[in-house]
């Protein structure tokens, strides 16, 4: 019976089997369907920059762990792309000039537009997608460079993973197009923002240039660029690849785009960010372009701002998605409080978040396309309100920086005064006001650090300079023997290092490891700072406790270009003593005598 059934089945098969032409036709139709699907996917993906529809989550962070500061790394990579682009542009100019410029293209090659376009191309190659960036940051090499720190965090339990969002059709998009969170310049940002900055920023810049070419002024051209990008039905935050595929319109993405515009403009012209102005990063030098960047470690981070953080600058959601996300965030107010704390380590209240949210609605006063519902936005300020009485500082008048809540002449639990906190926050005017009222400039916290240390550690060179001008101690050593000069050199602040040396900072001060500022300059390969230190009498023979001198450090780090200057300084220092200032290179000593055989000078 079974056999007959099988036979029947087999018998029926030939009658159902399509004819050869029919099969060919089916194959053609299937192929056509596949081709159409592939084309649609390619259009969707290729229509916009590679970051469209990506989301990150700064509400869900690694509990009990600290982030690595990727600001210097990202800045150095961006600077490397700028340098490569300039080198290529200069080579193109040279080639055209050598050929006698038969096509009359030299002028075009020397234009700001051309060199900016080259920078874009090199940046696209450096950071093609945030997925690749995330992968690199999770690699063993990156993790070994930042031991015990989180290089990139992509939670498996993000706010977009709520099970009740299962029926939401936009969830698969959010599930597969994810970006991690990193810390850059003290701000927690999604890696998708970096790609927004690079790619969508370049679109903004192109539109800005066309508006300028049509005769519009700076402000109007900027707004034209913002509006033109926002109006794109496919690639804008409110378009198919934004709100209608993810359910999210990200104000953080828009801020990163806007900062990207500022960056590309700043390559060849000064730009304004808030009250400050950034000088151009490139200058014409005869026929060529030249990179003239100060503070190399901040080339990228000077454009990063809290606008990019989606907790501080919340998103606008489609109603259904927003409702669910609101409920998930509501269950995580404790987690948010862990990460957003004041200078005394206490959780910040919702009043602070509300003030921050208002502040970030513009980019230092300039509109960047920010939108948020006036009533009950999906934000910490609105959702976590009930937690204030228990944990937050509801009673405080929501200062945007912790020092504002400290009464003068008092210190917090870490021994930090209002002046110390103002310096850490880069509020130079406040520092000056408090100093004028008699607050001690050199009061130390429980780690022995003064306001000058605080300003330097937090990358506030302008405030540090103001402190020096007010008479702050340039030689005060904190725990581990760290002096302001060591911090300035480690941060690559050449101008500040010069100011410290002028103020009497000892170029040969050693920390607890026996390292001097010259060791740090040699490690970084910072020729300008090394030369400056040597001119002020830095002793290249001083060795660490382990017996390593600056020459060995430079050689190990692969900065061979520093070796001649370091070697040349040795006899000068020996003759004139460590306090010699303005010593010039006079002779080339035997390299072998100074490398590997320097006796460790007793540490101070």
């Amino acid at each position, binding site marked *: 019976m079974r056999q007959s059934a099988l036979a029947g089945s087999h018998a029926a098969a030939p009658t159902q089997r399509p004819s050869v032409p029919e099969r060919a036709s089916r194959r053609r139709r299937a192929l056509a369907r596949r081709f159409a699907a592939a084309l649609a996917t390619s259009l969707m993906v290729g229509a916009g920059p590679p970051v469209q529809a990506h989301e990150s989550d700064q509400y869900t962070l690694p509990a*009990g762990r600290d982030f690595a500061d990727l600001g210097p790394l990202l800045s150095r990579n961006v600077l490397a792309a700028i340098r490569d682009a300039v080198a290529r542009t200069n080579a193109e100019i040279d080639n055209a000039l050598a050929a006698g410029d038969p096509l009359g293209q030299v002028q075009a090659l020397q234009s700001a537009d051309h060199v900016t376009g080259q920078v874009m191309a090199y940046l696209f190659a450096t950071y093609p997608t945030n997925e690749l960036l995330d992968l690199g940051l999770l690699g063993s090499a990156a993790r070994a460079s930042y*031991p015990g720190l989180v290089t990139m965090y992509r939670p498996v339990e993000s706010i977009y993973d709520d099970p009740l969002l299962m029926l939401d059709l936009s969830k698969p998009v959010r599930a597969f197009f994810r970006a991690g969170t990193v*810390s850059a310049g003290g701000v927690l940002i999604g890696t998708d923002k970096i790609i927004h900055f690079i790619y969508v920023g370049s679109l903004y810049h192109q539109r800005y240039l066309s508006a300028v070419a049509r005769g519009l002024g700076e402000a109007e051209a900027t707004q034209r660029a913002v509006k033109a990008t926002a109006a794109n039905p496919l690639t804008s935050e409110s378009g198919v690849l934004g709100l209608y595929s993810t359910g999210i319109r990200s104000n953080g993405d828009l801020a990163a785009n806007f900062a990207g515009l500022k960056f590309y403009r700043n390559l060849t012209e000064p730009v304004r960010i808030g009250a400050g102005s950034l000088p151009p990063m490139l200058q014409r030098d005869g026929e060529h372009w030249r990179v003239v960047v100060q503070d190399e470690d901040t080339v990228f981070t000077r454009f990063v701002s809290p606008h990019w953080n989606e907790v501080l600058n919340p998103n606008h959601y489609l109603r259904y998605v927003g409702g669910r996300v609101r409920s998930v965030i509501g269950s995580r107010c404790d987690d948010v409080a862990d990460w957003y704390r004041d200078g005394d380590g206490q*959780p910040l209240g919702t009043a602070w978040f509300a003030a921050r949210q208002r502040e970030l609605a513009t980019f230092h006063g300039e509109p960047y396309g920010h939108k948020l519902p006036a009533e009950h936005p999906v934000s910490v300020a609105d959702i976590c309100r009930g937690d204030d009485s228990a944990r937050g500082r509801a009673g405080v008048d929501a200062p945007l920086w912790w020092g504002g809540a400290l009464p003068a002449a008092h210190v917090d639990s870490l021994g930090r005064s209002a002046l110390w906190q103002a310096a850490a926050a880069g509020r130079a005017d406040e520092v000056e006001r408090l100093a004028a009222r008699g607050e001690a400039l050199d009061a130390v916290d429980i780690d022995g650090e003064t306001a000058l240390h605080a300003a330097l550690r937090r990358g506030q060179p302008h405030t540090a300079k103001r402190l020096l001008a007010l008479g702050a101690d340039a030689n005060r050593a904190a725990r581990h023997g760290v002096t302001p000069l060591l911090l300035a050199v480690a941060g690559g602040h050449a101008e500040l290092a010069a100011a410290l040396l002028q103020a009497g900072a000892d170029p040969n001060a050693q920390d607890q490891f026996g390292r001097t500022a010259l060791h740090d300059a040699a490690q970084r390969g910072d020729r300008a700072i090394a030369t400056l230190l040597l001119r002020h009498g830095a002793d290249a023979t001083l060795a660490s406790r382990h017996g*390593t001198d600056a020459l060995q450090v430079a050689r190990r780090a692969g900065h061979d270009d520093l070796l001649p200057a370091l070697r040349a300084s040795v006899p000068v220092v020996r003759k004139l003593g460590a306090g010699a200032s303005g010593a010039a290179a006079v002779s080339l000593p035997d390299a072998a005598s100074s490398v590997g055989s320097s006796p460790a000078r007793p*540490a101070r």
Partner: protein
Amino acid sequence: MPSLSLPQARRAPRIWRLVGVLALLLLLQACATRAPRPAPAVAEPAMDEARVQQIVAVWRQLLADYIDQAGGGDPAALAQLPARRATGTLRAARIVFGALDVEASVAERDGFDVQGLLLAPRPGAAADPYVFVVGIVQRAGYRPVALVDVRLVAMATRDGRLEWTVGDGGPQALMRYRARLDPAAPLRFPADKDRFELVACDSGLCVEEQLSAARWSLAVPALAGATSAR
């Protein structure tokens, strides 16, 4: 005679198979929901000595690798660590060397985080070894759940090699230290407000956390009489 036939096993149309796979993926996503924050444990688990030694050995090895790769064998590479921590960290001046996900079956979900806070040498004390207060934090459900051990570890360099001395756990000190931790703050070691201090003692080296008065010791004679706060 009517022939009997068994029902044919029909394959689901491709679209339904696709829907099935998508539903499964979404279900798996839903399983990854964040657990609520656990209440602080009243009595935290004690960890057996052999396991602690094993975990500390992993941390030591990573530290040795770091000194080798970043400093060419010179512990001065540790001076670069504070600058690698995110700007705005509350105690940015501290030098802490850490190892994450030790013995973790899934990164970040479980296992242990080991962090060592550097106390000595004092500036100018050429003979001092490098002394760390090392804390082991257990993780579960993607969160830190218990501080299971704190002890002193000393590292010295001799003829280009690193020599180690690992102290005892000191259960009384651990209990005292735990009792002072803020239950409202996320568990971490060292805590933001800790004040570890090297203090003179007969047994060689002692470290006290000033706020809790918890004290650990280590037999390193070279450091007797040293005082330094972190």
